[in-house]
C-alpha cells in the first residue's frame, strides 16, 4: 500500500531554511495552515508576519528580492493569485524577481467554498510573463518544490499540498523541471491520459481499470505548467489512436488542458482532446471527494471520458475503481481537510 506523509512541506521548509540562509518566509496570518510554523519557530529572525494584507506582502517580497533575499510567500493559493494579481504582475513578474509563491489549497481541495477555491490560478499566472508554475501531485513533489524553485531565475508559483499527502512517486525521484513523469506506457496506445495535481491519483485508479478492459493507455503526470514545452506530452498524444484526456483540479479554461490544446494546434496534431476540470463554473463548499465527483474530476469521470473518446462503453463502475484503489488514504485525508484551519 502507498505511504501517506504527514505535512511534508513543513519539515522540508525547515530543512531548506537551514541550507539557504537568504531564504525568508513571509506569512499573511495563515502560518500554521500553510505549514510554515516550523520554519517560524526555528528561524524567527527570518520569518515576517504581514497580517491579512496580501497585496502589501507581495510588494515587500519584491523589495526584499531586489535586495538579494529569497522571499518565500506562504498563504492560500487564492490569496496569492486573485487578490494581489496586479502586485504579482507588476511588482514581481515584470522585474523577474526571485520571489517564490507557495500557494495552498489548490482547486476544490478545500471545503471553504468559492472564496477559498483556487480554480483559476494557473490560468491567471500562465498569462504573467516570466512566471514559472509548478504543481505538486504527491509528497515527493511537495518535497521537491523548494529545491526546484531555488534553481529558477525568476518568480515561481507553487501549487502546493498540505496535511496528509500520499507518496505516489519514489522519494528518490524528485520533480524535474519541465519533465512529465511517464506513469504508464501502453503498446500502440488507444489513448493518452495527461493528469496533474491531485487528479493524478485519480488517473492512477482509472488507468489500470481501463487497461484491464483492453484499452491501451499512456499516462503522463505533469508538474511543470509553465514553461510548457515537454515534447513527451505532444508525442504521447500524437501516438494515441483516439486522442487524449487531460484531467486537472482547475477550470478547463487556461490550465493544463488549454496548454495542451495550444500545443496541439500549433504543431498541427489532429487529435481529439477531452478536457476534464471545472467546466467554466465556480464551485461551492463541500468535502473534496464530493466535489471531485460533482465536478467530474475523479477516476470514474476519467473512465466515462475514455468511453466517449473510444466510442465504446466499458464495463467499469465505481466499485471496480475502488478495487484498484492505489491507497487507502483518501478517506482520512478528506476528514483531515474538513477539520483543518481555513
Amino acid at each position, binding site marked *: 500500500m502507498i505511504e501517506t506523509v504527514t505535512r511534508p512541506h513543513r519539515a522540508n521548509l525547515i530543512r531548506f531554511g537551514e541550507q539557504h540562509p537568504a531564504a525568508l518566509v513571509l506569512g499573511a496570518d495563515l502560518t*500554521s495552515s500553510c505549514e510554515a510554523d516550523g520554519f517560524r519557530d526555528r528561524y524567527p529572525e527570518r520569518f515576517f508576519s504581514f497580517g*491579512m*494584507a496580501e497585496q*502589501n506582502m507581495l510588494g515587500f517580497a519584491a523589495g526584499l528580492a531586489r535586495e538579494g533575499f529569497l522571499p518565500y510567500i506562504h498563504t492560500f493559493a487564492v490569496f496569492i493569485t486573485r487578490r494581489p494579481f496586479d502586485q504579482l504582475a507588476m511588482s514581481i513578474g515584470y522585474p523577474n524577481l526571485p520571489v517564490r509563491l507557495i500557494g495552498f489549497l489548490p482547486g476544490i481541495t478545500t471545503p471553504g467554498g468559492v*472564496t477559498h477555491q483556487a480554480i483559476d490560478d494557473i490560468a491567471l499566472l500562465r498569462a504573467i510573463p516570466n512566471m514559472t508554475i509548478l504543481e505538486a501531485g504527491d509528497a515527493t513533489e511537495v518535497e521537491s518544490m523548494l529545491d526546484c524553485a531555488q534553481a529558477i531565475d525568476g518568480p515561481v508559483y507553487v501549487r502546493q499540498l498540505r496535511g496528509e499527502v500520499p507518496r505516489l512517486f519514489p522519494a528518490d525521484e524528485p520533480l524535474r523541471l519541465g519533465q512529465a513523469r511517464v506513469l504508464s506506457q501502453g503498446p500502440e496506445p488507444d489513448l493518452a491520459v495527461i493528469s496533474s495535481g491531485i487528479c493524478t491519483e485519480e488517473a492512477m485508479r482509472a488507468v489500470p481499470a481501463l487497461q484491464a478492459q483492453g484499452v491501451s493507455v499512456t499516462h503522463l503526470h505533469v508538474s511543470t505548467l509553465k514553461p510548457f514545452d515537454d515534447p513527451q506530452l505532444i508525442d504521447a498524444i500524437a501516438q494515441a489512436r483516439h486522442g487524449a484526456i487531460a484531467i486537472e483540479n482547475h477550470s478547463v479554461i487556461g490550465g493544463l488542458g488549454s496548454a495542451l490544446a495550444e500545443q496541439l494546434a500549433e504543431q498541427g496534431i489532429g487529435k481529439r482532446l477531452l478536457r476534464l476540470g471545472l467546466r467554466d463554473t465556480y464551485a*461551492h463548499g463541500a468535502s473534496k471527494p*464530493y466535489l471531485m465527483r460533482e465536478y467530474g474530476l475523479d477516476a470514474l469521470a476519467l473512465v466515462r471520458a475514455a468511453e466517449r473518446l473510444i466510442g465504446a462503453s466499458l464495463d467499469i463502475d465505481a466499485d471496480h475503481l475502488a478495487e484498484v484503489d492505489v491507497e487507502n488514504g483518501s478517506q482520512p485525508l478528506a476528514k483531515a481537510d474538513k477539520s483543518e484551519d481555513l
Partner: protein
Amino acid sequence: MTDSAPTPAASAQAAPTLAVATVADRIRRRVLEHTLRNNGGYLSQACSAAEILATLYLRVMRLGPSQGPAVPRPFAGVPSAANPDAFTGADYNGPKHPDLDRFIFSPVHYALVLYSLLIELGRLGPDALEQFNQDGSTVELIGAEHSPGHEVTAGSLGQALSQAGGIALARRLRGERGRVWVFMSDGEFQEGQTWEAFAALAHHRIGNLGVYIDANAQQCDGAMADVMTIEPLAERLRAFGAEVHEVDGHDPDALAAPARARLRLAGDPRVQASDETPRQPPVDALGQTESQPPEPAAVPTAVPAIGPTAGPATGPAAEPAAADRPLVVIARTDPCRGIDLLRARAPKLHFLRFKSADEHDAYEDLLEHWQDDAS
C-alpha cells in the same frame, strides 16, 4: 435539542438586557454543540460576537420577517444567467423594502454564530443545523451568499464593506430610509481595501451605513498585536472621517446606544427625541422584533432628502454633517466569553481543533451541563 427559540411572549416580557443576554447564551450553547458534532470549528467567534449580533437583530436593525424556508434549501448551483434556481440567503433577513434595513455579514467564518442566532429568533427552523457543513448544503462552514442570513459572498475578507458602501449609496440615491448595517471582524482592518472603503464612505458622506466590529484582538496566527497591529483603531477610523464609539461588546445597552443615537440624530421615526435609553422594540406575533415596515401613515413627511444632509461636496469640502459620517462601533470583546475552557488555548483561539480525547470530553461535559450554568 432541549432548548428552543424564545417564544414571543417570553421575549416580550423579558427585560431588554436579558433578552440579548439569553439569546447570546443560547447561541454559545448551540455553536458549542455543533463544534463538537463537527469535531472542531469556529467556537471563539460565538464567545466574542454573540451579544453584538443579537443586539443588531434585536435592538438595532429594522428587518421584516424572514422570507426563507425553515429548512434551508440545498445548494442549487452558482449564480449565472443559465441558472434560474440560484437563490440568496438574504431572505432570512426579511424582504427588501425602502424603509427596512439591510444586513451585510462580512467575516463569514462566523457563519455558525449567525445561523444559531437566526434559529433563536425563529428566522430559521430549529433543525437547520442538521445540514451544517454537510455535502450539498448551503449551511456552509464558511458562508456564501446562498447561506442563510448572508447577502454577499465575503469569504475573501475585507471585500464586503465596499459592497455595503455601494448598497448604501444606492439607497441614498433612491431616497430610501432603510439603513445598511455591516458586521466585521477586526482582522479585516489589516486589508488595505477596508481603508479604501472608509475613505470613500467619508468622501461620499455615506451616513446611512453603520459598522459593528468584533474587536476580539485575535486572528489565525494568534494575538493581533503580534501578527500585525491595527491599533489605535478608533483614532485611525476617526482620522478617516468616521464617527467612532468604543464599547464593551458584551453589553447590549452599550452596543445599541450609538446606533439609536444616530437614528435620533437623523430624525428616524423609530426613535423619539426623548428616547434616551434604548428600548426593547415591540415583538410581533411571529416573534420577530422591529420587523414590520412602518405603516405608511407613520412615515413623516420630513423624509431626509436624496443626497447627504450637507449636500454634495464641491470644491474644498465643508465638514460633513454629523449624520453623514459612517458610524462605527468598535465592540471590544473577549474571545473566551462564556467558555472559559478556551482560555487554555490562548493566544491561538481562531479555530478549535481538539488536541486530545480528554479535551474533547471536557467540552462535551461543558455542553452537558450548560443548562445548569445558564439557569
